[in-house]
């Protein structure tokens, strides 16, 4: 039982150690006023805080129940059964859902990367990207002005799809949309919501003919109402918001997905201190993981892609480097293949590497309409 294990600030710890309190037992018999009055030079409230933290640590040691090794641990067998009952958020494209094992999982953080549209100075370059498929090569042309691969569309689609009611196989939950770039278009969200409701009535009509009265009572406005939208203008706002989400989610327990579009935008330009950037990003990732686990929600992060120059060839890699790539549970890379949009699973603990085609239509994300519908497995 040592002092360095307590979550108190470094200066308080230094003061405690220099005054001779190096183990928790030495703090057990002292009162907060004695602590404040002594050589420590801390205020009364700080002293009370220190003692509270110390007694909490002591309490967790003695209350160790014999049935579980560690409080809060679950056995793998129980988790297997929990996972089988876990719902997925569909992406509205059957191929994409198939490779994702049903859709976006709750309790996990999924990162989706898209190809950057930043103009390369002096020329339009062609990049040959040999992907995981081995010999297939993809010609990637950067043209300014094209709206992109569809990451914001996918984000909006997920925010709408999470609200599909339980009767139709959805989660019936709300969504949080954190917008850092200002690319969320309300009219588009309305369009996608309308299309989603029309699809639901179609489904209703075809399969549940006897439930004539069960008309869809949802209106596009209801769907929009259930998307909580936050607009972020700097990285400090982003961190503050993630810290605030804890409180927000305890009040709104029916939120089932957090979409952050895009998580790296404010960290890429004008960030001088790289060490600070790594620290802030890792801390943010841990907090998001914590939220995902505690509230059983899905976290979808949208990221940009940069080029890495290795061994005289250009490689596309997700922005923010290796440390950030390490922190997410799953990673999906969106890319162009000819005229088609593809999604490829780059990292996953349990899913096989595979890619699927999808398309962005007026009604949102849908299956690609090309004749070649084969899903390419690894």
């Amino acid at each position: 039982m040592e002092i360095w294990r307590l979550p108190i600030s470094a200066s308080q710890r230094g003061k405690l150690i220099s005054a001779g309190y190096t183990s928790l037992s030495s703090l057990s018999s002292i009162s907060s006023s004695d602590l404040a009055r002594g050589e420590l030079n801390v205020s009364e409230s700080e002293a009370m805080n220190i003692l509270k933290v110390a007694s909490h640590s002591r309490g967790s040691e003695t209350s160790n129940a014999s049935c579980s090794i560690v409080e809060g641990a679950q056995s793998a067998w129980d988790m297997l059964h929990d996972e089988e009952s876990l719902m997925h958020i569909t992406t509205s494209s059957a191929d994409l859902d198939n490779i994702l094992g049903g859709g976006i999982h709750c309790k996990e953080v999924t990162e989706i990367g898209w190809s950057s549209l930043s103009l390369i100075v002096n020329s339009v370059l062609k990049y040959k990207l040999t992907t995981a498929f081995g010999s297939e090569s993809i010609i990637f042309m950067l043209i300014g002005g094209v709206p992109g691969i569809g990451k914001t569309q996918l984000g909006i689609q997920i925010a709408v799809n999470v609200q599909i009611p339980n009767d139709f196989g959805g989660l019936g939950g709300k969504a949080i949309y954190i917008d850092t770039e200002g690319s969320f278009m309300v009219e588009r969200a309305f369009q996608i919501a309308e299309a989603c409701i029309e699809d639901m009535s179609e489904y209703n009509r075809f399969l549940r003919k006897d439930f004539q009265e069960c008309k869809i009572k949802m209106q596009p406005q209801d769907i929009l109402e259930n998307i909580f939208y936050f607009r972020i203008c700097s990285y400090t706002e982003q961190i503050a918001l993630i810290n605030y989400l804890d409180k927000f989610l305890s009040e709104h327990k029916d939120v089932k997905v957090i979409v952050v579009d895009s998580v790296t935008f404010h960290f890429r330009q004008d960030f001088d201190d790289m060490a600070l950037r790594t620290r802030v990003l890792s801390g943010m990732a841990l907090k998001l993981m914590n939220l995902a686990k505690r509230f059983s929600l899905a976290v979808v992060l949208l990221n940009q892609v940069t080029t890495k120059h290795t061994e005289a060839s250009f490689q596309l890699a997700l922005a923010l480097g290796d440390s950030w790539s390490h922190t997410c549970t799953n990673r999906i890379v969106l890319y162009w293949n000819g005229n088609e949009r593809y999604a490829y699973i780059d990292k996953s603990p349990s899913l096989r590497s595979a890619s699927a085609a999808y398309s962005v239509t007026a009604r949102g994300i849908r299956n690609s309409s090309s004749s070649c519908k084969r899903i390419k497995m690894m």
Partner: protein
Amino acid sequence: MARLANLETEYPVLDSTVRNFCASHGIFSVEDFLIHDLYMLAAFAEQNNSSERLKEGIAQVLSIIDDMHQPWLNGMELLEDAKRNKHVFPTGIQGIDLLLGGGIRVGQLTELVGPSSSGKTQVCLRTASNVARNHMVLYLDTGNSFSPQRIAYFLGKTINPSSAQAKNQFLQKVMSNISCHSVFDIFAMFDVLHQLESYLRCQDGRGGCQMRLLIVDSISSLISPLLGSSSTQGRALMTSTGYLLKKLAHQHNLAVLIINHTVGGEGGYSKPALGDSWKCIPHSRLFLSCDRGSNNYNVSILRHPSMASGKAARFVI
């Protein structure tokens, strides 16, 4: 080490006379006592009036200090301990087991380093499923990447199911030996390790299925938010974590497997994260990488107590 004043309740011989004497020499805590010249102190105590009292007090403090250090072990005892307790656990992956001469060793801290998506979590899951057949496993997960389906898949591959029910029973028996806990900051991990320590202390006494494997996936996610700032607290916490894990491994006969990621180094090569201070803490370090687009993985030894570093192997998961 406590202040002498606080020790009075437990050891009444350290009363005010003794303490005043010590205070006159600038000694307020047990730590100050250790730094001081004890011969000089004893000589001064002789000259004092209540010399008996003072000598008793000094002897008492010395015996308190004696209780604090680990017992001495000689080479034969260490060898006995190694033969009896410090077994080797096969990971279940042939390439790695051959490379390491058996597998991961109990009592040692083994680190898996590699770029993103190079198979580190998969190796941990495979090892957990292998060790869980006979022992208990604790998996500390920082990135929600523990996948029970993968464990079930690995276990399913190794048995011939006579019936679905027998397979189910086998899965239940083995998977109940794996406990998974999510930790999202380093102080939570310290709490968990502390509870684990009390559990292991009770376990050493009784028999039955014992905990033999601790996996932390990944230690670098917990430590990265702390490193790099101007204060040294991050590095201190990192080294303390390393020593705590090694202590648990040695004293309670655990094999500890931790995961670290890589960062860009000079010349575009990736190097393990957490810096040079961390480099010497794990006993063995393995570097994993993946051939893009296939199931072939490469592993090479960066550091190992008994195998040559630089040796490499390939494996498939």
